[in-house]
């Protein structure tokens, strides 16, 4: 028995030596040039032209691709990107863009480009979305939501290559927002040569979106669904290779695990912490918490196609039953603002602050319900968003608070939830009665916001979750989008918001602040006004030893 113990303790010591001994120095090179981001969910696809969710854009458009133009989210200025300069014809129908030279696409294990970026890539990227007969148009049943909701599907007549380095966009009618559209994620430029390669070699056409090729700062290395996405820096990036050589998205839907991974140092940056973790993060000296009022709105959408939510009086009654003040305090931790309009308060000058307040008034709510013929109440479902977004940091908690408020007026609410992909899919099919959702604006453009969420055409493009269609409202926002007279534009948007306030297809809840937490050695990580995260230009401070 006595010869047993020394043996075992030697083993144990050996273990300690291997695991903890002198491991710090060797690991540093991988850690100094690598960055791990604890993200919230798997991207729906790597094609930025389809889909609308911010988690997908973070993983595709902002990492792998570039657009022809970019936008300064603070000032709204249009900046060059893949296009050096641009020109609008006098009638506003033709936009001509000069392309940048010597921009390289990614070289990966699955594709080696033989040429640099040119006008045929632009043509391919837009024709794929516009032409229903295009070989790559129908892939995995995806729809080009933004291409439709921005009206480009109807308004873009043609994209033509004048020569290798010049393209021209022809519109049916002038659209002052056109250049903004070119800065948005769905206008990302894909490689035409890669598409030809897939078609020529009879590779499954889905591969174009599973193994993407772009011009962006990082290229895809490996992706394991629901586990991680691994990127490496694009060595020939047009603005110079990134300091971060390895970028990993650690897909961590559980917010508590995200928090734990950040604290234990497995992640350098985390997305959207729970409001209950906010104070803990703030008090931790090793971490930096950034937050900013966001261009977003969280709302409670009523499916206006089904009874009793087709009745505006019922919608009003339910809206007055909800105590949004409590929601702001508990769910948002007071990091946000209540809105009575579908537009976020930060969307100036178009947010109409003269709208009548949607007051918390259970008595009025009961009266309205009785008026609508539901004096005895009814039973309904609330679908709670399963992930944390700036506009809704905790969907389930919000739904529970609302459940209690609704009980006060005799309405029994059941909380329904699915995982994110299923949730989005079912909501876009209109399977919900009511749903807690939200939207993060792409730009300061109110027209984009309202038409995406509330226009009749957005029902077709599946982003109008209330399935509400009001021709007068539609008319007002279309007019507003097509005028360049700022005063008239503002008045038109104001009137549209008044119609919304009358009809209440949803109860706007408020805008939350975008929050991100990171370790202090992560430098130059900015928080974006329009939500989402971008690792371009980020570097890590190497501790001097």
């Amino acid at each position, binding site marked *: 028995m006595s010869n047993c113990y020394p043996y075992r303790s030697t083993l144990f010591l050996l273990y300690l030596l291997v695991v903890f001994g002198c491991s710090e120095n060797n*690991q540093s090179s991988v850690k100094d040039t690598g960055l791990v981001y604890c993200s919230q969910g798997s991207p729906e696809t790597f094609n930025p032209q389809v889909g609308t969710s911010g988690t997908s854009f973070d993983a595709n458009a902002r990492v792998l691709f570039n657009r022809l133009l970019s936008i300064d989210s603070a000032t709204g200025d249009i900046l060059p990107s893949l296009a050096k300069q641009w020109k609008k014809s006098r009638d506003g129908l033709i936009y001509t863009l000069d392309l940048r030279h010597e921009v390289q696409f990614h070289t990966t294990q699955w594709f080696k480009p033989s040429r640099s970026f040119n006008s045929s890539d632009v043509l391919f990227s837009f024709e794929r979305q516009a032409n229903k007969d295009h070989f790559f148009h129908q892939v995995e049943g995806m729809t080009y939501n933004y291409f439709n909701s921005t009206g480009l599907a109807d308004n873009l007549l043609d994209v033509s290559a004048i020569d290798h380095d010049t393209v021209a966009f022809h519109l049916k009618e002038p659209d002052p927002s056109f250049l903004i559209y070119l800065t948005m994620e769905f206008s990302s430029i894909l490689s035409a040569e890669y598409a030809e390669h897939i078609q020529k070699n009879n590779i499954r056409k889905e591969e174009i979106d599973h193994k993407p090729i772009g011009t962006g700062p990082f290229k895809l290395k490996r992706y394991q669904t629901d586990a991680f996405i691994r990127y490496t820096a694009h060595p020939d990036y047009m603005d110079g290779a990134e300091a971060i050589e*390895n970028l990993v998205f650690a897909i961590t839907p559980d917010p508590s695990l995200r928090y734990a991974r950040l604290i234990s140092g497995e992640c350098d940056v985390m997305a959207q912490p729970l409001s209950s973790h906010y104070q803990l993060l703030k008090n931790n000296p090793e971490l930096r918490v950034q937050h900013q009022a966001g261009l977003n709105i969280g709302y409670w959408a009523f499916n206006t196609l089904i009874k009793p939510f087709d009745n505006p009086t019922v919608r009003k009654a339910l809206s007055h039953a909800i105590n949004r003040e409590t929601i702001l305090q508990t769910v948002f931790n007071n990091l946000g603002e209540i809105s009575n309009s579908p537009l976020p308060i930060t969307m100036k000058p178009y947010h109409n602050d003269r709208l009548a307040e949607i007051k918390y008034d259970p008595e009025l709510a009961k009266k309205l319900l009785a008026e609508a013929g539901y004096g005895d109440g009814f039973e309904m479902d609330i679908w709670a968003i399963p992930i944390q977004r700036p506009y809704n940091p905790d969907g389930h908690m919000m739904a529970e608070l609302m459940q209690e408020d609704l009980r006060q007026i005799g309405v029994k609410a059941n909380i329904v939830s699915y995982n994110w992909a299923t949730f989005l899919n079912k909501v876009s099919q209109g399977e919900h009665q009511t749903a807690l959702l939200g939207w993060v604006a792409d730009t300061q453009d109110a027209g984009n916001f309202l038409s995406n969420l509330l226009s009749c055409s957005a029902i077709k493009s599946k982003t109008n979750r209330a399935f509400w269609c009001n021709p007068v409202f539609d008319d007002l926002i279309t007019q507003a989008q097509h005028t360049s007279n700022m005063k008239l534009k503002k008045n038109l948007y104001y009137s549209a918001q008044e119609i919304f306030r009358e009809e209440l297809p949803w109860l706007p809840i408020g805008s939350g602040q975008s929050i991100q937490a990171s370790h202090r050695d992560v430098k130059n990580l900015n928080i974006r006004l329009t939500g989402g995260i971008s690792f371009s230009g980020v570097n890590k401070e190497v501790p001097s030893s």
Partner: protein
Amino acid sequence: MIKLILRQLFFVITTFFGVTLITFYLQTLAPNTGEEQQYSEYIARVFQGDLGVSSSTRTPVSEEFLAHLPASVELVVLASTLALFIGLPLGIVSAINHRKPTDLIINYTSLTAYSMPIFWWGIILIMFFSLNLGVTPVAGRLSFLFDIEPVTGFILIDTFISKEPYHMDAFKDAIHHLTLPVLVLATMPTAIIARMARQTMLETLANDYMLTAQAKGLSKFKIYWVHGLRNALIPFTNMLVLQISTLMTGAMLTEYLFSLPGIGKWILDALEKSDFQSLQGGILITTTLVIFINAIIEMLQTWLNPKRLKRTRIYNG
């Protein structure tokens, strides 16, 4: 003997069909599968090894299973080895010092460890070691920055044989990641093994031949560790194999707790994502596996120790 094998075979086959009935029923709960399927078709497909395609990853379920199996096997093997190496000596020491303080301490500690729910115990360890002290990672099997090509699927082997320049760092990191999960999973089996070892050792020590050995003037070491242990091992291994399903359940919970990409995590994720094909396939394969392992061990034991056969014969009249 043949009778026994036939009986085991009959047992395996009936249980297997029972399980397929349940998994087939699961399918009727799945929303819009498109085509209606008969039970006979389902069984035919299962026997061809076709378990369908996962609705969330669009890869064949059998492939998914094989991709997740190594992580589970690695965890179970490491944890049971650890449990054996700690539990067995503890139990024997306890038996040798019967009713002395050492015995009492070991006995009570193992009783506590035995009754510890894995979920709770795991979270306590994570809170202490990962969040408070920051010495162990909270989840996963390797730091995200290490990119190791999965060759065998066993992370310790893959990192070891990898050609990446940092592969030894990755190997250490993998050990680092496995420490807590292995500890958590090993806790209960260690306690069970210690208690079983103590029990069988006590029974062996009470035999006449032990007294004879003592009378012969053998050294204490020889008496306990050679004569005692050898004879205690047979009933001990019998009791040990009964713990396989306990270990597998524990592994599933541990995987979930530490986000380890094993079978348990895979099945629970499939449930969360309403991926019924994976769920159905996963349950079918794991239960079949457990049934088979149990049956094989049962037969092996009988073959090694024919006394068992005689005993069952007597019981059967």
